[in-house]
C-alpha cells in the first residue's frame, strides 16, 4: 500500500471507531457533569467542573431508585444463570455429541426448532408459569427460565465434537464410566468453550430488559436494565443521573469485553456459523 492510501485507509477505520465509541464516551463524560452543563447549548465536550454528584444521588441511602441494590441483583441473576447454563447445557451437550440413543434426532430437532421461535412469543404463558411457581418479583424468574435456551446446548455440542476422541477412549479402557469421562476428560478439555459460554450467558442476562420489566414489580427486586427505565422516568432531564446509571450498567459489560474480547467475539462468530 502506498503511503497516501495507507493514511486514507486508517482515516476511514478511525472515523468508524469514532462513530461507535464516541456516544459511549459522551455517556461517561455527561455522568460527571452538573445538570446545567449537561444540557447547555452549545454543549461542552469535557466537563468544566467535573463532579460525582450524579453518582452520589444514585447511591444515596433510602432513595426511590436503589441502584446499588439493582447492581447486586443484576450480578446475582447473571452469575446464577451463567452457572445454571454451564451445568445443564454441558450435561445435555455431552450425549448429543458422543452417544447414540433412541430419540436423539427428535430431541435435537425439537431444540433446533426453538431457535426459530422468538422467545418473546412465549412471554404470556411463561408469565403465568412463573406466577404458579411463586417466582414473580423474585430473582428466580430471571435466573431459571432463560437457562432453557437452546443456545448453550448447541454451542457446547459443537465444541465437544471438535475434541479428539483418544483421551476418552483411553479413559474407558481404564474403566471409567460415562460420568467420569464427562467430568475428568471432557470438561477439563473444554475450558475455553465453557468460559466463552459463561461470558455470553452472563452478558445476555445482564442486559435482559423486556422480561424483567414485566416479572419484577418492587423497586428493591429490580435489576439494572429495568432500573434504567425508572431512572429515565424519574429524573427526566437530569441527564447526568440517567447517564451515571447507564454507566454503572455498562462498565461491568465493557470491562468483561475488554478483558475477554477474543473469547466473546470468537464465541459469537462461531455461534453464527452454526446456522
Amino acid at each position, binding site marked *: 500500500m502506498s503511503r497516501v492510501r495507507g493514511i486514507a485507509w486508517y482515516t476511514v477505520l478511525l472515523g468508524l471507531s469514532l*462513530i*461507535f465509541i464516541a*456516544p*459511549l464516551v*459522551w*455517556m461517561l463524560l455527561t455522568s460527571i457533569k452538573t445538570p446545567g452543563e449537561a*444540557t447547555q*447549548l452549545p454543549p461542552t465536550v469535557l466537563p468544566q467542573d467535573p463532579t460525582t454528584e450524579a453518582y452520589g444521588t444514585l447511591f444515596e441511602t433510602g432513595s426511590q431508585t436503589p441502584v446499588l441494590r439493582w447492581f447486586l441483583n443484576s450480578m446475582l441473576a447473571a452469575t446464577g444463570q451463567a452457572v445454571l447454563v454451564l*451445568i*445443564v*447445557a454441558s*450435561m*445435555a451437550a455431552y*450425549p448429543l455429541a*458422543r*452417544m*447414540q*440413543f433412541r430419540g436423539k434426532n427428535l430431541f435435537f430437532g425439537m431444540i433446533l426448532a426453538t431457535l*426459530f*421461535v422468538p422467545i*418473546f*412469543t*412465549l*412471554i*404470556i*404463558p*411463561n408469565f403465568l*408459569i412463573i406466577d404458579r411457581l411463586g417466582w414473580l418479583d423474585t430473582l428466580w424468574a430471571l435466573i*431459571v427460565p432463560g437457562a*432453557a435456551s*437452546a443456545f448453550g*446446548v448447541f454451542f457446547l455440542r459443537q465444541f465437544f465434537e471438535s475434541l479428539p*476422541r483418544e483421551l*476418552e477412549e483411553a479413559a474407558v479402557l481404564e474403566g471409567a*464410566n*460415562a460420568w467420569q469421562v*464427562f467430568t475428568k476428560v471432557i470438561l477439563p478439555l473444554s475450558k475455553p468453550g465453557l468460559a466463552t459460554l459463561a461470558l455470553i450467558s452472563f452478558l445476555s442476562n445482564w*442486559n435482559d430488559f*423486556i422480561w424483567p420489566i*414485566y416479572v419484577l414489580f418492587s423497586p428493591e427486586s429490580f435489576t*439494572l*436494565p*429495568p432500573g*434504567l*427505565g425508572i431512572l*429515565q422516568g424519574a429524573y427526566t*432531564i437530569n*441527564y447526568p443521573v440517567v*447517564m451515571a446509571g*447507564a454507566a454503572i*450498567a*455498562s462498565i461491568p*459489560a*465493557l470491562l468483561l*469485553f*475488554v478483558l475477554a474480547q477474543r473469547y466473546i467475539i470468537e464465541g*459469537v462468530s462461531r455461534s*453464527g*456459523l452454526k*446456522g
Partner: protein
Amino acid sequence: MTMLQEREQTEGGQVSPGMRRNASFTPYLFLLPYFLLFGTFMLAPAVYGLWISLHDWDYLLPGKPFVGLDNYQALFDPASAVYDFFWQSMQATGVFTALSVPLLLVAPLAVALLLNRSFPGRTFFRATYFAPYVLGVAVIGVLWRFLLDPNLGAVNALLGGSTPWTTDLPWAWFSLVGVTVWWTLGFNAVIYLAGLQDIPRELYEAARIDGGGKWAEFRHVTLPGLRPVLLFVVINTVLQAANMFGQSYLITQGAPGVETRTAIMYIAQTGLRDFKMGSAAAMSYLLTLALLAISLIIFRLFRTRD
C-alpha cells in the same frame, strides 16, 4: 441395545467410547436436567399459550370462559376493539424490519471486507466496532434518548437545527433504525468476517488468474463463499428486527402517537399491563406463524439459488 449398537457400527463406522459400557438410560440421565427446564419454559408455554388463546383469559378475573377462536377472529374483524391497534403495531414492526434489515445486511459486510486482511491494529478496530453490541438495549435506549433529544441532545447540537428525532415521523423511524444499526452492526460484521476467513485463498488466486476485476471477484468468489453464513445472518436479522421492543419503548415510547409501537410492545401491553392474556396470546401466535412463514420463504430462496 444390540440393535442400536449394530446400527451405530454400520452407520457411524466406529463405536464411540462411552457407548459400549453404558447402560441404555445413561444418555437420558445426562439430558434430564436440561430437559426439565426445556419442558417447563419452552414446550409447556408453547402449548399453554395456545390454550390461553382459546379463552377470554383476564388475569384479574376468576372466570376464564372458553371462547374458541374468538380471539383470533377479533384480530381479523375491523369492527373489533383490538383490530386497529394490533395491525398498527404489526405495520410498525413491518416498517422497522423493511428499513433496518437491508442496512444490517449490507453495512456490516462492507465493514467485514474492510477488516478482512491483516494490518496493525486490526483487533483493536474490530473490538471498537463490536463494543456497542455488548451493551444492553436499556443502556442504548436511555443513551440515545438523551443524544437525540430535539432540544438538548448532542445530535441536533452537532448537526444544527431542531429535528424532532424522537417525536415525529419520519424522523422517529430514522432514529430507531439508525440506533439499531449502530448497536448491532458489529455482531453481523463479526459473523461475516468469520465466513470470509473460511473462503479458501486459492479461489481468489484462481479468480485473479482468470483476470476478472475486484467486482467479478466479489460476485464469483466472495458472495458464493459467504452463502452458508448469509442464510444465518438473514434469518437472524429478520427475527431480531421483528422482535424489536426496547428501542421503541425507551427512545420514542411509540411516538408520535402509537405509530412506532411495535407488535411485541402491543402484545406485552395487552397481556401483561392490561392483563387481556387470551387476546395477547392469540396475537403472539399470529406473529409467530408470520415469522415462521418468512423463515421458510428465506430458506426456500436460498435453496432455489443452488
